[in-house]
């Protein structure tokens, strides 16, 4: 139900995305892997137009957007159907955890305040932050901030949540708590596209794994296919490099 057709993107002369096609079914968790510079984050950012694609089509359900003729209204609509969890959390710094989650509900969804509040509290409790409603981002640890970020994305009830390396800015000991929350919501059947370097997590949670390199999708399939029986040489090389502990003992 999410279909990317022939998405391309260039920064100056450098083509970062070369006609990417990708389909994500409802309730599916798609994990995108790839070395840095492979274009995976750019692809994710194209899906909600934080990067303007050079061409192609984005379809979510019945909604279709031709990237060559996107109007402001279309982009706005596209963004309302998606939500994003950022690598650097990007919580609104001048708002408390609760206000961060409520903001989109009040301003974009135009919910009445009391309803927005109730819903937001429930979501923050779900990510284990029921006790931190009134804390500002600067008073929260990275892991806590990212969990607020996830609650903020969930609140909008988007058709898809985009995760842009949600744990790579975190201290190692905080990665676990964030992954646990993502696992939990993945099980609830929320459609997600996740860019990550966490291989164990990808193997566990993904229904579908996409390996990108040099702006193209090199290989895709089920986690078992991609992790255990990679067909392409580039995929094998990458997996070997990123999971050295499987090959060497230190």
């Amino acid at each position, binding site marked *: 139900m999410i279909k990317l057709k022939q998405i391309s993107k260039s920064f100056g002369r450098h083509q970062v995305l070369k006609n990417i096609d990708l389909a994500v079914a409802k309730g599916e968790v798609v994990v995108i892997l790839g070395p840095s510079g492979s274009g995976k984050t750019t692809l994710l950012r194209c899906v*909600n*137009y*934080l990067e303007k694609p050079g061409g192609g089509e984005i379809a979510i359900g019945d909604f279709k957007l031709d990237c060559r003729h996107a109007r402001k209204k279309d982009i*706005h609509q596209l*963004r*309302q159907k*998606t*939500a*994003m969890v*950022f690598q*650097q959390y*990007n*919580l*609104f*710094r*001048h*708002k*408390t955890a609760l206000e961060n989650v409520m*903001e*989109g509900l009040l*301003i*974009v969804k135009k919910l009445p305040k009391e309803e927005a509040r109730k819903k937001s509290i429930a979501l923050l409790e779900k990510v284990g932050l029921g006790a931190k409603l009134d804390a*500002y*981002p*600067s*008073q929260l640890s990275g892991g806590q901030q990212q969990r607020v970020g996830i609650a*903020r994305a969930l609140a*909008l009830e988007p058709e898809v949540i*985009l995760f842009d390396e949600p744990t790579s800015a975190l201290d190692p000991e905080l990665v676990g708590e964030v992954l646990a929350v993502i696992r939990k919501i993945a099980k609830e059947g929320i459609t997600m596209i996740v860019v990550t370097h966490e291989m164990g997590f990808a193997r566990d949670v993904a229904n579908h794994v996409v390996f990108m390199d040099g702006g193209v999708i090199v290989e895709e399939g089920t986690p078992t296919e991609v992790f255990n029986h990679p067909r392409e040489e580039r995929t094998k090389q990458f997996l070997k490099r990123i999971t050295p502990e499987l090959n060497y003992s230190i």
Partner: protein
Amino acid sequence: MGAPFDISYIFSFLPKLLTTLGTTLLIVGFSLLAGILVGFLVALPRLYKVPVLKTFAEIYISFFRGTPILIQLFLFYYGLPEILKLVHVDVTRAPVLFFVILTYGLHTGAFMSEMIRASVTAVDRGQVEAAYAAGMTSFQAFSRIVLPQALGIAVPVFSNLVIALLKDTSLAFTLGVMEMTGKAQTLGSISQHFIETYIALALIYLVISFTLEKLLLVAERRLLRHEVPGSPARKTFGLQKNGSYRRMIAQLGPGKGGGG
């Protein structure tokens, strides 16, 4: 030079000088309003990179930051009527205060626009992205996310600019405006107790500057209550934790670097 020092004159001059405090504050207040307005108008084309207008804005800022306020005062006082005469507008009868406020307004405006631009740019790009990702329009993202944060960042610079403006108004006497400094000179020459007058004058400026600074500090604390003090944990060379480093940098940044 003058009569022998007599401390009692300081106290007797204080109330006399304070009678003209209204004029000084009037100049500060109106120039400030004009300056904020001009500052926004000049900052916008630079923030949104509007061609041509952006160049005009840059020249404007460069001129008003690149020449002394004293020269600007004379330039506008003598020059504006002549230039307006070319388009058949007669301002020769306009009160001096009009020229004074106009000049200070335009002067502060140049600094204000730099302050506005710097504070808006200082808000993390990720904040806007998060707002867009949540489905906000660009106006919502600016008014609800960027502006409130930029305000907090701007206060220390703003505080510095207001105090600089207050001090700069001491030059209005050169055009014959009877504000505090003008009054002090009159009192000095009448009584020949120059030192005492100027001590009294300096004391009044000091108290006003101090009060303004404290008031704006309260405003800053309120606007930045979401930032844990010293949260970007940095160890500096400083052996003390006297005030925040960000504040000091901000005060010196696009502000006026002394003089005036």
